[in-house]
């Protein structure tokens, strides 16, 4: 079926995009370049959301992650002056790389075996949900998490503002 192989081609294209972006994010010496890799990954994941026929969440991913979170991280890079001439410039030691790889491989082994051998049968094509149904779901059975996340965002914002006002005490 040509349309199905086209869909697989698009899927693997997005997967390649995500893999390249994620490797750039963790391995790049330059933090700004690492942030560009993170943005690549976020766009790739948004594409996967579109492929899973959840376009609303894909748009939210682009708006929230690419629009807000990556700008915040860019401000963090800028304000702390930790780009290539800064702290990250001299590369990490080899021992640290080995330890980090071991740490990353432990969940890869266990979770990977689990999801390969125990995953339930999956649908080939997801059906689309209307945004109005999503809103009704969010405001009727899921009202408590919805309110809690608003509270969490408010508290985080207030905490960030208070931390920003902190002056260094005189010793």
């Amino acid at each position, binding site marked *: 079926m040509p349309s199905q192989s086209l869909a697989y081609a698009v*899927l693997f294209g997005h997967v390649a995009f*995500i*893999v390249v972006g*994620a*490797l750039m*994010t*963790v391995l790049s010496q330059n*933090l700004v370049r690492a*942030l560009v890799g993170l943005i690549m*990954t*976020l766009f790739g*994941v948004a594409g*996967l*959301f579109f492929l*899973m026929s*959840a376009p609303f*969440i894909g748009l939210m991913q682009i708006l*929230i*992650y690419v629009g*807000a*979170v990556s700008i*915040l*991280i860019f*401000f*963090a*890079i800028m*304000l702390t002056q*930790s780009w290539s001439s*800064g*702290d990250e410039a001299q590369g*990490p030691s080899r021992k*640290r790389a080995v330890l*980090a790889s071991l*740490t*990353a*491989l432990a*969940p*890869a082994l266990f*979770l990977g075996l689990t999801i390969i051998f125990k*995953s*339930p049968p*999956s*649908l*080939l094509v*997801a*059906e689309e*949900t209307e945004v109005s149904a*999503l809103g009704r779901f*969010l405001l009727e059975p899921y009202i408590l*998490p919805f309110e809690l*996340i608003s509270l969490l*965002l408010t*508290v*985080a*914002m207030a*905490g*960030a503002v208070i*931390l920003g006002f*902190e002056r*260094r005490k005189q010793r």
Partner: protein
Amino acid sequence: MMPEVSPMLIYHLVALFLLCTGLFGVIYRRTLVGMILGIELMLNGAGLSIMASAQLTPTPNEIGQVGTLLVMGIAAAEATLLLAIVLVVTRRFKGVEAARLATMRG
């Protein structure tokens, strides 16, 4: 024997890859900002996994979509707080290397 490769398996493997890369990044990076990048990768993998589990199985789709939205909200709140914390750390320690943050003092 190997089971056949279903679409959900591909999505879950991508999410697992994001989790592992994020963990690697959190340990490999020496600055706090680099660690934030790793944490964002891990959270994104979590959202992808939740979404794939709900969209590609008979589970109601709304659960997965709302769950992914909540993960995004938590990530946004976390990024806001981390920016403020990183600023305070820079002001106090004149740098954001994790090894330098070794004093506990009010």
